């Protein structure tokens, strides 16, 4: 199965934890702290998306997409609709919320789907960036 595009649906809530630079910290015997920077980009940003009360058909798109990315294995770009409501930059500039076009997301864990009533579900997606 080839990779399907991420569903073009605006989430009802979005939570992003900006990634950090890869750093190693060492403490000398006298207590002095030494930090070594191992990369030039921050990474491992995470994003939690909630799609509240959507139809089961739309919820199925997330299942199909998850399977098309071989679960948590493959990387993929998310749809622009994921950033709806965010006025800052998404791909470039100092206010960007993830690391430019280099960044690709992958599923951090399988989507969870809660059935609300017949035909209506709430889907939660957890993503993590990888450079």
């Amino acid at each position, binding site marked *: 199965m080839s990779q399907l595009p991420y569903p073009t649906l605006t989430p009802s809530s979005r939570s992003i934890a900006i990634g950090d630079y890869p750093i190693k910290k060492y403490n000398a015997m006298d207590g002095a702290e030494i930090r070594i920077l191992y990369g030039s980009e921050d990474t491992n940003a995470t994003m939690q998306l909630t799609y509240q*009360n959507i139809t089961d058909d739309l919820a199925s798109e997330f299942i199909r997409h998850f399977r098309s990315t071989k679960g948590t294995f493959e990387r993929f770009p998310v749809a622009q609709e994921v950033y709806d*409501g*965010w006025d800052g930059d998404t791909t470039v500039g100092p206010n960007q919320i993830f690391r430019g076009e280099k960044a690709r997301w992958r599923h951090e864990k399988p989507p969870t789907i809660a059935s609300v009533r017949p035909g209506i579900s709430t889907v939660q997606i957890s993503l993590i960036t990888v450079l």
Partner: protein
Amino acid sequence: MAFYSGSNGELLINGQKAARVSNWSVSSNLGVLDTTSLADTDKTGTPGIRSTSGSCSLFYYSDDITLANSASTLINKLIKTKLPGGAPGQAAETELVQLKLKVNDGSTSGKYITGNVYLTSVSMTMAVGDVLSAECSFEFSGAPVEVFL
């Protein structure tokens, strides 16, 4: 064009007309599920679960001939005695009862809403100067069986 008042009201319990009903009320509600998404400026929704409930008041009245007591009929659907030989906390299940809340509009069938309900509360107060009556609240189990309003 006609208005209706208490004199046009009627309550049937399992198909039998209840005696000495002083009032009934019914209320239907729809829970709207929120579908508001990011970048929306106004709340949007989709229909969720409906619920119907109501209440009625009946005088605690015994018919001299039939000895029927409509208030007692409803009370006994909710209040159950301990099972013989059973533990103190074990009694028979609350019974489902069919209520028909009717408006006699002059037609043969009248206007009505019928449903299977569970009594959710029954209260009675004995007081000097007051006629004993039962205040009952009920909740429909499932959608109404018949609605003709």
